[in-house]
């Protein structure tokens, strides 16, 4: 499943997309994120359960701002969460 967390507003699209089929619930992205944007939760999408990464409720409506320090306008862009994920389950829409 492609889980899109975030929003689109007048200024643009800001989604963190987690591919839950690839996410093995290792939690490395959670540790890598300096701003506590990510967390591990029970997979509540199916009765099978298991753990998966998600964007916290608290940050879902403001990730454009929460992730801003990780996304300098110029210079090399290295997103700690994306780099930490070995299964390449995380992408950002912006």
């Amino acid at each position: 499943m492609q889980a899109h967390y975030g929003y689109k507003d007048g200024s643009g699209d800001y989604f963190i997309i987690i591919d839950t089929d690839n996410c093995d619930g290792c939690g490395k992205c959670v540790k890598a994120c300096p701003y506590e944007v990510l967390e591990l939760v029970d997979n509540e999408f199916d009765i099978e359960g298991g753990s998966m990464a998600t964007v916290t409720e608290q940050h879902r409506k403001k990730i454009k701002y929460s992730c801003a320090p990780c996304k300098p306008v110029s210079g090399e862009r290295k997103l700690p969460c994306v780099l930490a994920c070995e299964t390449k389950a995380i992408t950002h829409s912006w």
Partner: protein
Amino acid sequence: MSERSSEFWRWREYRHTQPNMDWNQAKIVTAGIDIGSVGSKAAIILDGQLYAYSVMRTGGVSEETAFKVMNWALEGTGLKTENLHQVVGTGYGRVNIPFANKTITEIACHARGAHYIYGPSVRTVLDIGGQDCKAIRCDNKGKVMSFLMNDKCAAGTGRGLEVFSDLIRIPIEEVGKVSLNVTEEPPPVSNTCVIFAKAESVALLRQGWPKEKVAAAYHLAMVDRIIDLLTKVGIEKDFVITGGVAKNIGIATRLETNLGIKPLEPELDPILAGAIGAALFANALYEKQLGLR
């Protein structure tokens, strides 16, 4: 304006039992409870078939509402809470349902329920409520393949429409119809943001545009935005629209035209989708416990 907002898309409280079904004959009896921010619903299914349901307003205390809506669905059936093999809770108040065996997100339940209500050909579900917009793509079993939920921005939600209907002083129930009263579609309002789109609409009115034309421009902008969100999860046939805004024909008709897909018509009130989906998950959960799956 804000007083009215929570009750914006009016709906009634009701319950129903399918006449020719007998729970005594059923192997598995399960229930789903959907505690939403405005409305709460309960659905009871017998071996995977909808048997009874209830819809009511969410009260101040989620726990109480959960008991009430459950008891109302059970009312007159002779069923008791003890007879339910499993109960699954969903909706924003799902953590406050004391008798639920498990909780499942509203996204998954909504997709599963839409699959039941509209049939297995459903692939894309769009749900536009008063304060949010959800786009879900699912497979032939009703399993979510991709989803997004936008509840940050009022644009593209019932709330955005409400602001506009207040502005042009046309009741919200009619604004969609009014917007179709144009011979030719104008260019859409260029601002997405409700605040700026409102200012733009005022400017258009001052330029002498009739209300209908401004309404058309505003609705078109909303539709463009909704399609953009749908594209992110991928649009596949068949397509269904649920939620309060589905009742606005100015939005529904334009979505149909611009997507070139006709949405399916429901036989049951889609407001029940979440509760039915939850009850179906409860059914699956019980089958799993029995070792049937």
